């Protein structure tokens, strides 16, 4: 089995607030393999975007990160800002959620894509930068090529256009072009389709799939939409209150969900064929500054047992017929629920 290109070990991101420390990300372990698409699913505020920002070292003070972020075995949390900057956008690129606010309104789109190339000196010539007239031209050609690739029609004409002159879908394509410009090995996509119409969503997802296949870029897709993740990803990690509550291959998680939260999320997806009523998860996401003792999902859990509110639960491998569930990729299906570690469900008796 291949080695992961990106591995998170015990990644914890803490923000001090007036009401105490908030663990937006709590001891997250993840591995991303070359060419893999990993979905990070959860409700808003569960820390999934913070995971992405933590990977890039973009957590603003006073927030801080502990644990390890290993890129090819190199711990990014130990790197200087300068070294991190060299990786950002070049090795690991990020695609943000809201394209309109993420593109800088004051600069033409083409220039913003070109900036990625320039920052990483992707097309160095024989001459030093300020005197190299040909460089700008080479960079522009590469930008036009990327714009074409992400499906922006008439890139030459749009090179000088400003973000507000683009439609939402085109803005998102431009953002993806910024991410793709330096041919990164890892793309971090933070809800890239949330702000878009359904039809445009499908186009963007198809585009990202193509990028994954043609460039071999591994992708972490953050989304609140389990249906989208099931469609697009190879593996899924479900997050709740800063922790991963279930992780496994798509088949394992979707077809045999173990955590009551995953089960609840699945029941929230409309099914066009069956037209069964949606069953929302009651209650809302807990306050991260004031997490309940024990399982964070316990207050909303339909299978709640008194023990759930007492201890701390680890991610446990799902055991079926006395064996761990291992996907052919080697991924072990794991969940963080008391049922897996021992206590018997009432209906089991």
């Amino acid at each position, binding site marked *: 089995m291949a080695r992961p290109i990106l591995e998170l070990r015990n990644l914890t991101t803490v923000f001090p607030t007036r009401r105490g420390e908030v663990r937006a990300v709590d001891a997250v372990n993840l591995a991303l393999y070359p060419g893999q698409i990993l979905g990070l699913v959860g409700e808003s505020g569960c820390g999934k975007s913070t995971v992405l920002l933590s990977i*890039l070292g*973009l957590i603003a003070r006073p927030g801080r990160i502990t644990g390890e972020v290993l890129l090819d075995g190199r711990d990014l949390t130990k790197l200087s*800002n300068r070294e991190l*900057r*060299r*990786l*950002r*956008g*070049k090795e690991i*690129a*990020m695609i*943000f959620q*809201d394209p309109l*606010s*993420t*593109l*800088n*309104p*004051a*600069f*033409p789109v083409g220039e913003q894509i070109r*900036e*990625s190339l320039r*920052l*990483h000196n992707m097309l160095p010539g024989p001459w030093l930068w300020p005197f190299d007239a040909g460089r700008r031209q080479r960079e522009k050609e590469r930008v036009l090529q990327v714009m074409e690739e992400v499906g922006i029609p008439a890139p030459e004409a749009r090179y000088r256009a*400003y973000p*507000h002159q683009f439609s939402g879908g085109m803005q998102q394509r431009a*953002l993806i072009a*910024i991410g793709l410009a330096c041919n990164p090995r890892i793309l971090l996509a933070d809800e890239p389709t949330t702000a878009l119409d359904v039809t445009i969503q499908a186009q963007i997802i198809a585009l990202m799939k193509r990028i994954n296949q043609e460039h071999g870029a591994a992708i972490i897709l953050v989304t609140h939409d389990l249906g989208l993740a099931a469609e697009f990803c190879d593996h899924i990690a479900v997050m709740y209150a800063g922790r991963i509550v279930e992780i496994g291959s798509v088949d394992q998680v979707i077809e045999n969900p173990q955590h009551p939260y995953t089960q609840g999320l699945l029941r929230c997806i409309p099914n066009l064929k069956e037209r069964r009523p949606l069953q929302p998860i009651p209650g809302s996401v807990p306050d991260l500054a004031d997490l309940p003792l024990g399982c964070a999902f316990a207050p909303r859990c339909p299978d709640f047992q008194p023990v759930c509110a007492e201890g701390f639960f680890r991610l446990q491998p799902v055991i079926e017929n006395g064996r761990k569930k291992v996907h052919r990729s080697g991924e072990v299906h794991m969940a963080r629920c008391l049922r897996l570690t021992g206590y018997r469900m009432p209906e089991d008796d």
Partner: protein
Amino acid sequence: MRLVKILERLLAAIPIMIGVAVIVFLFMRLTPGDPVDIMMGQGGMVTAGEIERLRSEFNLDKPLHEQLALFLFGLLRGDMGNSFTKQRPVAQLIAERLPATIELALGAMLFGLLVAFPIGIISAVRQNSLTDRLSMAGAFLGISMPPFWLGILLILIFSVHLKWLPVQGRIGADVHLTTVTGFYVLDSILTGNREALISSLRHLVLPSVTLGAAVAAIVARVLRSSMLECLRSDYVKLARAKGAGEFSAVAKHALRNALIPTVTVVGLQVGVLLGGNMIVEAVFGWPGLGRLVVDAIFARDFPLVQGAVMVYAFTFVAANLIVDVLYTYLNPKIEM
């Protein structure tokens, strides 16, 4: 295209200027106090015939609407009439004083911006730091300190006690300077007069600081708050995620957008500079337009006040036009 729009805006300024002309004309006449009475009050024995003669000379015996028409038609010909008190064309009087006022305003603006930009940016980047708090306290002081008091304070410290800078005037009395444009700093450079350059710059420092303190304070506060907003924006986050350094994220991505509201405020400060200069010119014995206008108001010198107000109004309109043009460069969403 842009040029056409600018011309259009200049044409649109004409009705504004006419409006200003009518209003200032009416207000001067509504103010109690008669110019001839004031002039004669200093003259001792005067005959009624002499008063009549003066009134007809100044056209004050004509009905109001006729006086207004004379004034407006004069303006169209570029003739602002003769000053009652100085017996000379108003245009000439203003032209003599205007360079001094503009020089002071430019100095104050330069000081204001040079102080405001670093302070505004650093305060935003290091929000709530000691630097930020001290700067903002300083800015508050700058806004609330009346210029006449600040001016006197500066004179006391830097001229009287430390003797670093001159107290009054635009240039040393013993320095000879050939006037070309009326801007002493520019004239010194044009005539290659090193001594005059140093002297005029030294004279410019304290008045500029006094007049520019409020500008610096206001611009710094606006720049800080808009920088704070821009620094938190998604596009700055994207810039960092692209691999941009801190300097590029702040100075390029955030500042470029923070400039948009800042430029508006800077444009409005031009009005503050013109209004504030009367006091500062008085404190520093600066022979500018402000003092001329104050004297003219007390003497009810109608043509001179009207002419000066027209110049002020035009400057303000022009400054805001420049701001609007700058805007189209800064904010691509806005077309003129």
